[in-house]
């Protein structure tokens, strides 16, 4: 599964996710990636793209849940992302990660697995890529 989130210079946010699904999956099985609110979500406040145990990200409406925790719970992007990835997803036996940007340009790239292929770049700064947890 792959994804991208962006904040443009006009202050607009967007998200995209794409996947080949699961190895050896039953034909016809669909995970969270194509479902707005589960594997991909963007509003005027936050953009999110997820990767992981699709069924759990669907049942938790993971991407939208972050936006809701921020909007209704007053949590920051980092707090909401961490709560989802390190509490809610594992509580249902899921694993994976996500990337997210909010309208202030805050970034969150949490994951509860050993690693995540990821990268980010802020205007005027050098891009950063990482794979392992300890980076």
């Amino acid at each position: 599964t792959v994804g991208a989130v962006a904040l443009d210079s006009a202050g607009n946010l967007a998200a995209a996710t794409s996947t080949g699904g699961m190895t050896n999956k039953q034909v016809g099985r669909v995970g969270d990636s194509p479902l707005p609110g589960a594997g991909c979500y963007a509003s005027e406040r936050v953009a999110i793209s997820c990767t992981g145990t699709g069924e759990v990200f669907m049942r938790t409406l993971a991407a939208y849940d972050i936006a809701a925790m921020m909007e209704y719970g007053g949590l920051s992007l980092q707090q909401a992302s961490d709560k989802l990835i390190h509490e809610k997803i594992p509580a249902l036996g899921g694993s994976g990660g996500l990337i997210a940007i909010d309208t202030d340009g805050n970034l969150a790239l949490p994951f509860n697995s050993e690693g995540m292929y990821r990268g980010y770049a802020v205007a005027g700064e050098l891009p950063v890529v990482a794979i392992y947890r300890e980076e």
Partner: protein
Amino acid sequence: MARATIAIHGGAGAIARASMDADKELLYRQALLQIVASAQALLAAGSSALDVVTEAVRQLEACPLFNAGVGAVFTHEGTHELDASVMDGRTREAGAVAGVRRVRHPVLAARSVLENSPHVLFIGQGAESFAEKQGLEMVSNDFFSTPERRTQLEHALNTQQTLLDHDGGLPPDRKFG
């Protein structure tokens, strides 16, 4: 003026430094860097967030290292089924396709659903016909196949597992999705 920012991912999982050989790690880092840098350049040139995420994911789909587009994992029947979605925070508009087999870039089909249809999600044959009518590039299903993923399928079949691409890796390369 907001500080334009981009983030990308290529999947998460049990990617331990000890189990990744240096050459393969370098390939992943180079691919991620090239894609995130080109997205940053698009943002610097004034592209919209929606255009930038669409193009970044299109490039990730084109890279055989990641489980999307070329390099997608195999189903139980040895085929590929691809899903993708895009969402615009400014308008809350969204477009998605699921279970497509012949669309070279599913993210472009999702974008076309967002822009050229009143719907959000198309699946299977309907999604393929829509993409074809929109003039998107269509390929044969085996266009997405790679030897590494076929080996992962054989491993999964032998162990009767359904593996997320995060777990689809083989020792030592247990890649995540």
